[in-house]
């Protein structure tokens, strides 16, 4: 177990190097430095000499290899300096924005997973019935609608016309909930279709297996087969699917964050891309990568814990 963990943590190193390389290719080789420098200079001093001066100051005139190694060093030590636009240390900025994103996405994700799990098991239990067909049709329709449309409609009709929710805004602390309800609802609406379908398929695939037939032959009721046998076994693919989505949650809410002016990490990232705020971008990418690799590791370990047939080797 510990050997496995150590080996997996060592796998992190080449992945971080690769991520740094992709980032380096996009922002240092393809372009962006000039725009980046141009952006941080005040309007009056945007001259070639100034840009060259700053290029030297930020080390952008050094050889590519040195620049790359520097990037790697920054990523490993997690020291990205200050945001060029906001003039705040990147670490503080991240610490401030990540909890807000978490507040938006984790409850929404939790609601959505529970709702879709309930719907999916009902669908699988009453498969072929009108209810099943209705949910299947609705989930295809839900998959086909764009999030932006839903956000616009929700904000326009529910918040603006009917006044059920505040249109947008943010406060610190617990009072933020009233600004979060509408985004939560929209999040659930957008993603519930995909999940219901996935869970339903996972449950139905499980229900064709031999042990289900054995249970039926033993004389167990459909209900106890469904909820005691099938649901438990189907939890393995469902668990993987759920855990693997968690890292994407922090980034998946960019639209919601921008529309409802929630100061989260997606918002931070989009602004950083537009302002060529490279330190912030580096930090967000690094943060995401660590989060992602960490959660894939957790998935693998969980997988082995849930399913004894899988060995960690």
């Amino acid at each position: 177990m510990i050997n496995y963990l150590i080996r997996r943590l060592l796998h992190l190193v080449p992945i971080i190097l690769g991520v740094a390389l992709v980032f380096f290719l996009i922002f240092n080789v393809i372009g962006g430095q000039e725009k980046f420098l141009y952006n941080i200079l005040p309007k009056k001093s945007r001259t070639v000499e100034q840009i060259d001066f700053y290029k030297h100051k930020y080390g952008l005139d050094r050889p590519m290899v040195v620049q790359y190694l520097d990037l790697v060093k920054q990523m490993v030590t997690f020291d990205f300096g200050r945001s060029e636009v906001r003039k705040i240390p990147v670490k503080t900025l991240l610490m401030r924005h990540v909890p807000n994103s978490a507040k938006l996405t984790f409850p929404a994700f939790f609601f959505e997973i529970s709702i879709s799990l309930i719907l999916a098991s009902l669908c699988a239990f009453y498969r072929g019935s009108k209810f099943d067909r209705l949910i299947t049709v609705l989930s295809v329709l839900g998959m086909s609608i764009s999030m932006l449309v839903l956000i616009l409609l929700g904000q326009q009709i529910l918040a603006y016309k009917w006044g059920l929710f505040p249109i947008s805004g943010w406060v610190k602390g617990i009072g933020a909930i009233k600004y979060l309800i509408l985004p939560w609802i929209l999040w659930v609406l957008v993603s519930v279709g995909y999940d219901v379908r996935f869970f339903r398929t996972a449950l139905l695939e499980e229900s064709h297996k031999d042990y289900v037939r054995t249970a039926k032959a033993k004389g167990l009721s459909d209900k106890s087969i469904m909820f005691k046998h099938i649901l438990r076994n189907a939890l393995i693919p469902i668990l993987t699917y759920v855990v693997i989505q968690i890292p994407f949650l922090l980034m998946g809410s960019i639209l919601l964050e921008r529309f409802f002016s929630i100061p989260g990490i997606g918002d931070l990232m989009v602004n950083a891309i537009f302002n060529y705020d490279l330190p912030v971008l580096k930090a967000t990418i690094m943060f995401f990568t660590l989060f992602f690799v960490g959660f894939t590791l957790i998935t693998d370990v969980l997988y082995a814990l849930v399913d004894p047939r899988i060995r960690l080797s």
Partner: protein
Amino acid sequence: MSNTNELIDFKEKQDYYEGKSPFALSIARLKKNKWAMFSFWVLCIYVLSTIVTTYNVFGIHEAAYDFNIKNRYVPMFNSISELFGTDTFGRNVLARAILGARISLFLGLFSGLIMIPVAILIGSIAGYYGGVMDDISVYIMSVIVAIPGMLIIMSLVQTLGRSFLIIAFAFAITGWVGLARVIRGAFFQAREFEYVLAARTLGANDFRIIFKHILPNTFHFVILRFVLNFVSVIKMEVFLAYIGLSVIGVPTWGNMINESKTELMASHWQNMTAATLFMFIFLVCLNIFGDAIRDAFDPKLKNV
């Protein structure tokens, strides 16, 4: 009683299956699915309209591009030619929505055409040879997966410019990983099968085994990915339009929905309704058709 029934069933099945390749059987299964065929024809109408509107039929280009300030915000359902009214510059929204299909289709097509050969090549080589090749490919894939796709797309479009080809290219870069993984898995399994062994014993070289023997068996993944690629590209295009990174100067669904953001406050629903309607029908049909392809080609899921 049940015995005779089973016999009749068996006879019918034998007649049905005899002399047909698995591919032909899958197509037959697909054709039996009424909803799939319906959505297929709807998709064909979209493709056809894209081809037709490349030429300026009924003056559709003038209606979609030319400013006509006197005629702005014509309400919906006023006349047949201006079914969805006009937008803030007096451009015909119906014409713009029809032309919007074009960008979406071409983006999906180009990104698919870039992505699929890459995915097939890397996936098949990794899965077939294993070893070092496999390690390298898996490494590349895990690096690309570890960066959020949205971020790669946005950064590329922002640094390289907002042109059509660059957006398609950016979609392709993030999109090939999923397909390559599936193909790699399929090759991994197929490598051990008897038919591959038989082909090798008969003296077939690797190239022939990969492209002639194994690849056709994974082809439904490719078709499915190609169809579903349109869904993700269209959704992503709307997102890019909102961020302000979509193709400039042409009507796209994303741009229209993005414009409607400000118009809704003044209750001008023209852009919103037209773009959403066109996009929604298109996406529903794509999803239904994609599902039907998966059901028809994947015999394991037939009963689900």
